[in-house]
């Protein structure tokens, strides 16, 4: 589904990535891990066309995203969706409009069905229908994230990119979030790309992940494989401090 090949990125004098390659398969929940400043977000932003690709290539749906024309860009944007770290809700619209705007713009469905779809998605991400008429500034951080997820899911994307989806959520909601992602993957044939630090998400949700370290990919594989390697550099992403020694 996504093929990254020999990707290198530089910011002025800093090298962010050096010649990294990996593949993400269809229907896979794929994690991107790494310390702060290891270029996780840059990599994600390159995949979703927000940052230019300097060297190497990224192919999504077998299209080289460096060479898309306008029409292809439009189409590809309808096939994926992105959950930004802080939600990135449109602050001038209330929750229900934030969610239904995509349907209003891209389809010609009647208003009441659009609202039914939007309300269903709100409930699906664990929010109450009462929140529908609040403005984003009236929501807490965790609620914003859920609304953003509802918005991301409204067009049934093929790929969904999540930037730290569980940061700022309480543990119970985080687990519910993980379950929802697993559930949706089954229902919608979703491929999911997650940037995360959440140990439980890494353990229970991810099929495969990469760990970025010092411009390279330190590890690429499943959770079990990572445990088997038993390297301290890898382990710090897999275990709590107090269980590290054991």
């Amino acid at each position: 589904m996504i093929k990254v090949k020999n990707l290198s990125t530089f910011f002025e004098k800093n090298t962010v990535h050096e010649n990294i390659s990996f593949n993400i398969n269809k229907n896979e929940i794929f994690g991107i891990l790494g310390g702060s400043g290891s270029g996780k977000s840059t990599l994600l932003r390159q995949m979703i066309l927000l940052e230019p690709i300097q060297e190497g290539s990224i192919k999504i749906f077998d299209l080289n995203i460096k060479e898309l024309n306008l029409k292809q860009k439009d189409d590809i944007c309808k096939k994926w969706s992105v959950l930004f770290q802080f939600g990135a809700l449109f602050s001038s619209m209330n929750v229900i409009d934030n969610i239904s705007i995509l349907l209003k713009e891209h389809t010609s469905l009647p208003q009441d069905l659009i609202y039914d779809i939007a309300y269903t998605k709100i409930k699906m991400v664990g929010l109450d229908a009462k929140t529908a008429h609040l403005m984003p500034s009236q929501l807490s951080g965790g609620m914003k994230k859920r609304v953003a997820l509802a918005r991301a899911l409204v067009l049934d994307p093929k790929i969904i990119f999540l930037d730290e989806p569980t940061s700022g959520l309480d543990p119970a909601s985080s687990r519910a979030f993980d379950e929802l992602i697993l559930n949706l993957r089954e229902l919608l044939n979703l491929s999911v790309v997650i940037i995360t630090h959440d140990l439980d998400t890494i353990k229970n949700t991810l099929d495969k992940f990469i760990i970025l370290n010092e411009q390279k990919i330190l590890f690429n594989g499943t959770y079990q494989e990572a445990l088997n390697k038993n390297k301290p550099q890898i382990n710090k992403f897999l275990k709590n401090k107090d269980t590290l020694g054991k």
Partner: protein
Amino acid sequence: MYRIELEGFWEKYTLENKILFLENKIQNKENISILFNFEKLEKIDSSGMILLIKYVQLLKTKNCHLEFINISEKQQNMYDFYSLNYEHNEKIPVYKKNIFYSLTHYLVESYTSFKSFLYFIGRLCFYFFYSLFQPSKIRFKSILYHIETAGFKIIPIVAITMLLISFVTAYQGALQLEAFGLSLQVVEMTTMSMFREFSPFIAAIIVAGRSASSYTAQIGAMKITDEIDAMRTMGFTPDIYLILPRVFALVIIMPLIVFFADMVCLLGEFLLAKFYLSMSFSEFMNRIYNYVEMRHFLLGMLKAPLFGLIIAIIGCYRGFQVKGSTDSIGILTTKSVVDSILWLIVVNSIISYLSITIGF
């Protein structure tokens, strides 16, 4: 047993004809069994499924017995998942506001806004005197920065505006006065009105357009990103760090801008006097020296800091009113420019009237 065959693609981009299809099929159906056949359904997405659920719920309220056949496991899962989460909400009716509501709402709003403005001024005064007694709290660097951005970068536009305005005013005056044979008088007449009214006022309007808006936008953006709250928690009072430097900067720079504007006005008039009235430079200066009293110049210079104060206070006050969304930055920036120009006009008129009555 009534059968409904679901066919083809039930996806959001092509769903409208499926709505018609369902509407037709279920018209006037009550108290019967209905069989949904999923056999020929190629693909269904969440929008399609929610549409189906919507009608299923509708039929259930009409006492219909429903059955699905040939439904794949995946479709069944999808159906279960979405019907668990299905939510139908009637659109919330929008209440029309009547005129009494609007009027009282407006009055209350103005009253609270006036009160909060007084509070703002009071707090500013407190911190003004506080920083006078503790001069180490005054942010000199910040003041210089704001003097530069609000004062120096404005010079070209002030120069062009004042040059043209003084030239045009003098030209018009000269044409009118020519009929009475008094065209030379235009020099002192224009100079007086320029010194007293036009140059401080127009300079202030230009500053208001540039600085009031930018102060509101800067402070508003800082408020939305919680920077101001962060400052408060670190013990940096926003009044001392953000507002007072801007106020000081404009109060200091406005007289200088007005002085510059006055000089440009003289240049504009001299150009006219030279080319239209064939007056020499010394003649021109003599006329001004003899006929234009110092008080005209001083009045303009005294108004200037007051104008600077009005612009800075309104710009900052509106900035602190920003709340919540990015929309409010836009609204309040507009308000700050409109308000500051309005208050400039009001204050200028009052001063004008008073100065004439007391003969200054």
